[in-house]
């Protein structure tokens, strides 16, 4: 790999994150250091197994899919406006990274891990405390809506800016799912950008894994080929939003 392919960002400490845009074909920068992990590509498909088209995503609806592991929920949202671009973000340990932008024709489509980095609240088949709050719906977590809120302890994240922290106890953004929208409008998840909480998550929810996935080993299986993507109201019985 040639040196000029790398974009170097000095982090708060001495960590250097080398970003190689050629690594991915999607619209997000991904670091090949600790803060980007490429996983097997998975196509987002609906409950019947048909590919989901980017242009068919309802605006402001939170859809849930599990990626990169069988048990790790992510959300994908088609925002009402184009996202910001080249957003500088920082993990809780001080590493800096860049979230480039949303994807899709109008750069409105974003995807993030739905495991809240604060205390790991996440959607389950029973309930969902973390989701996008549409612009017309007020939230207690922040002055304006059109953001992602975790109602467990009211952490607010900027949906259009790489899930940057807006308010609340969380000390880092949600990890971003790196997406790729192909020429035929199909959507692919290719990796995770930012500091994810997967290991803490695997440590913390063993009884839940047994209940919903059959066990910890099943929960840790990597997703391959496709990821079932459904509206949050189909994924969980209860939606809790403040």
């Amino acid at each position: 790999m040639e040196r000029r392919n790398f974009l170097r960002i000095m982090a708060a400490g001495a960590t250097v994150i080398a970003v190689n845009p050629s690594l991915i074909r999607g619209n997000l920068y991904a670091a090949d250091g600790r803060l980007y992990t490429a996983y097997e590509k998975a196509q987002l498909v609906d409950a019947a197994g048909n590919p989901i088209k980017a242009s068919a995503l309802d605006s402001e609806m939170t859809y849930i899919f599990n990626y990169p592991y069988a048990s790790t929920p992510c959300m994908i949202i088609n925002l009402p406006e184009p996202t910001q671009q080249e957003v500088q973000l920082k993990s809780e340990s001080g590493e800096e990274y860049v979230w480039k932008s949303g994807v899709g024709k109008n750069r409105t489509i974003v995807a993030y891990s739905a495991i809240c980095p604060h205390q790991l609240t996440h959607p389950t088949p029973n309930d969902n405390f973390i989701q996008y709050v549409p612009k017309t719906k007020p939230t207690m977590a922040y002055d304006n809506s059109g953001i992602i809120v975790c109602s467990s302890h009211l952490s607010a994240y900027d949906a259009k800016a790489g899930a940057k922290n807006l308010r609340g106890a969380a000390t880092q953004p949600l990890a971003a799912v790196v997406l790729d929208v192909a020429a035929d409008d199909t959507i692919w998840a290719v990796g995770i950008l930012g500091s994810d909480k997967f290991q803490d998550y695997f440590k913390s929810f063993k009884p839940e894994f047994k209940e919903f996935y059959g066990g910890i080993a099943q929960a840790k299986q990597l997703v391959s080929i496709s990821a079932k993507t459904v509206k949050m109201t189909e994924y969980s019985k209860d939606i809790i939003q403040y």
Partner: protein
Amino acid sequence: MALSRRDAMRFTGLAAITAAASGYAKSDKTAAKSTAKGVLLSPAPIPAAKGQRVVIVGAGASGLTIAKYIKKGNPKVDVVLMDKRSVFMSGFLSNLVATGVLPLEFITHDFLEAARNGNYNFLQATVHDIDRTSKTVFTNEGTVKYDVLVLAPGIDYDYSHWTKGDVELETVLRTKFPAAFIAGSETLSLKSKIENFEGGNFVVTVPGGNYRCLPGPYERSCLIADYFKKNKINGKVLVLDENADITIKAAGFHSAFDNMYKDYITYMPSTTIDSIDPYKQKIVTEFGQEIEFADAALYPRVRGNKLLEIAGVAKDSPANKAEANIDPFTYQVIGDKNVFCTGDVRPMGFSKSANTANTEGKIVAANIVKYLGGQELSRKTWTSPLTVCFSAVSATPDLRAISVHAEYAYNDANKAFAFANAGMNEKWDGSEGIDGGKGLKEWGKGLYRDLFN
């Protein structure tokens, strides 16, 4: 007596500090000396420090958070977390356990799991003295030296307003009508009192000052009333409040009292207790009103844990006695920067809640790592803790809760902290209340994950 504390102190040259407080017999000095030498004055059975050592006293919401996040911030720091308890039981959510809404396991957790996951040492020990000159903590397991000490021992009760120093009365009150604001046996006592209640007045008191968990007594009153209602018990909760009105989420609690528990709760604001007869089970108020009760949870005022006095770091705050004498921005003891005091012993008027202790603990842990790295702490290194607090108002048929969340901002004019960016949800009767009930449980689960995983 196996050990004379005064003799123990002589060995460490601390006699001058403690002699005045000593009331021990001098007779069996020789036996006392040898026991002291053998056990109490030798190092506690934990590995030698492998780097700069931080000793944290108190494994509550505050100490557990600080231990974990110091190790996350710098794994090279040697962390020892101590607690006199062998099992963790949380005060938060304990009202729901006392009223049978949640099982005891929900609030009961394992210190060793936290130590394994957090890569620090847990020592089950009671701290009985601290020498800040030699930087030594004295425990019933032996001594431990520190580079930085964190005191997070939580509250003690201040019964003096009711007992005027009558220790016998205090002991009877603690035993017969425990406050149940320090989790453990008190919680279990309250649970059995409620389960076995046959009828009559059940008194719940709300103290003045900045007491632990402002909404706690009101939440408890609602849940006890809910229990009476559900189980058709002919009982009434009398809420004797020293304050002029409900101290937090007043609209939500008032409407719950009025709408759900009209026949079950009598709220009595501005009620200062003059005397309590624990045998006749009678309270006399400041204005001479006599109140008889069948049972009670008598919550006195709170004060800083006695350990602060022992360590010589206590000072009366505007609200409570003997709280930590610290710089409110750095949490360092005035005149001794190696000692930090956190959690419910802080003198700032923050809400004495687990959520506050947890968010504050992360900030303090990061600052301790900086301090050990040679950085000075100041107002610039301060950020606000957050308070997110749900309170249950009913359990039948659904768990419903109201909530408040806030940050704190310092007001230079009156040199005090006040709520900032605060928000409330005091509607319990619609879907908000049900969401609140679910939120309450998820809030707690998140906190346990943060403390133990």
